[in-house]
């Protein structure tokens, strides 16, 4: 479904240029859930932005659903591939009602039948009709994220790119949203690319994953290997160790993998 080959993203020019993503390649099959794990500065979010076209300055090959993508995306692409952002407080327009937010993609793509689509997608994400005309400041963090997911789904895409969808949410709300995302994927046969710094979330949500550090893929593994802790690279082992709670000896042994 998604094939990325030799992707490079450079920010800035000349002497101050930073290579955020250094020639990475991966592919995601249809219906699969693929995780991109890494710490800050690993380039995982940058990869996602290059794949969906938010960042047009990349080199390499990006193919989505067999179609090679260039600098700019067409409307057909957006109908096929959508994104859910990290911050529920920043991803909804503060002056638009939920209804307005959901009606807009329908209008842009001239799909028609907005009322029915909006009702259906709200129900799918677990929000009733009483939320339809609220403003974002009248919603909790979890509810906002559900609206963001609804907005991504209303165009009936095949691929969902998820950029840390639960990191900004409370722990108890996180479980609801993760369950919702899993159910939606099963119901609609969606393909996911999930970016997260949290290995536990990735192990719950993904089938395969790539561990990234400083713009490179350190290793790729299946989720079973992750759960068993069967990593090959030292960096991944360090990351696994750090995810399992505080241990003074382990912490002292951590090093910087530049």
């Amino acid at each position, binding site marked *: 479904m998604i094939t990325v080959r030799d992707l490079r993203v450079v920010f800035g020019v000349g002497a101050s240029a930073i290579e955020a993503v250094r020639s990475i390649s991966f592919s995601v099959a249809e219906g699969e859930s693929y995780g991109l794990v890494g710490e800050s500065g690993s380039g995982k979010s940058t990869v996602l932005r290059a794949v*969906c*076209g*938010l960042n047009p300055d990349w080199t390499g090959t990006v193919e989505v659903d067999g179609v090679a993508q260039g600098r700019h*995306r*067409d*409307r057909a692409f*957006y*109908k096929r591939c*959508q*994104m859910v*952002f*990290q*911050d529920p407080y*920043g*991803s*909804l*327009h*503060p*002056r638009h*009602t939920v*209804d*307005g937010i959901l009606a*807009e*993609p329908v209008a*842009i*793509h001239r799909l028609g039948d907005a009322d029915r689509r909006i009702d259906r997608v709200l129900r799918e994400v677990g929000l*009733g009709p*009483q*939320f*339809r*005309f*609220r*403003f974002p400041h*009248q*919603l*909790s963090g979890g*509810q906002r994220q559900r609206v*963001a997911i609804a*907005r991504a789904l209303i*165009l009936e895409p095949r691929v969902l790119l998820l950029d840390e969808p639960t990191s900004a949410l409370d722990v108890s709300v996180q479980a609801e949203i993760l369950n919702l995302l899993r159910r939606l994927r099963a119901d609609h046969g969606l393909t996911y690319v999930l970016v997260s710094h949290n290995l536990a979330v990735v192990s719950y949500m993904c089938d395969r994953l790539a561990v990234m550090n400083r713009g490179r893929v350190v290793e790729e593994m299946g989720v079973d290997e992750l759960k068993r802790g069967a990593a090959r690279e030292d960096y991944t082992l360090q990351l696994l160790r750090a995810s399992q709670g505080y241990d003074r000896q382990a912490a002292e042994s951590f090093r910087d993998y530049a």
Partner: protein
Amino acid sequence: MTTTDDRLSPPPARFSREWLLTDTPRSRLQARLGRVYAGWLSLSRNRLAMVGLAIVVLLVVLAAFAPLIAPYSPYDQNLLERLQPPSAAHWLGTDELGRDIFSRIVHGSRLTLYIVALVALTAPLAGLAVGTISGYVGGWVDAVLMRVTDIFLAFPKLILALAFVAALGPGIENAVIAIAITSWPPYARIARAETITIRSSDFINAVRLQGASRARIILGHVVPLCTSSLIVRVTLDMAGIILTAAGLGFLGLGAQPPLPEWGAMIAAGRQYLLEQWWVATIPGIAIFIVSLGFNLLGDGLRDVLDPKSS
């Protein structure tokens, strides 16, 4: 923020307070009216803003019902009654041609409102358009538009207005055009700054990812977020606009006699200032009160509309 949609109790009556402030609006109209109402409640708690609002409302009422309120015609001269101090017959006295000052003030409010409304409708819109396009599109469009703005900003406002009026000829319409032309740049700057902040937000990214055109994004997403600061700025600028118009009138370049424009009245009354102080001072007080009213209202609106200040 839990929601309890209690379907057992009857829905509130339409347009009632409860209906407006409900947690679960059922239509776009209800949601938007509710928001406006909540903003109004917030504003009405500010006493000074309410004073400002009262003054503005008074101005509008005076302008609307000027012929009914004014006891005399503003143009009727009576040379036997010239330069009379305030009395029962002439509440605010008479000017150098025997015209009732109170009536002239009342009719002059129409001119003041005319100037203010025209400028407020044109300059901010022009500034908004330039600023949002400049800020969102960026690149050379931004550079060109901002240099044009810089050129206008380089001149002191009154001088530039004088230049335009001198070129276009005196008269109140030309004064309005001149003031509008000199007022739009700050709005463009404000709109551009806001646009640049908004441009990188996730909600803009999200709508870009839906394939929205730039026009749709600017009109539907950027402009609604700029209007608050613009409204506040416009209200606070009213005082300056009135004063500029009065200044032009004072110099004889705005409203021409016998129009009862307040600035022109001050100019005409200048020579009588020492002994018949009311001729020049009363229009001045009128300008002061109206400017103050707009300022107070603008401050109050800023507290309600602009979250950064609170």
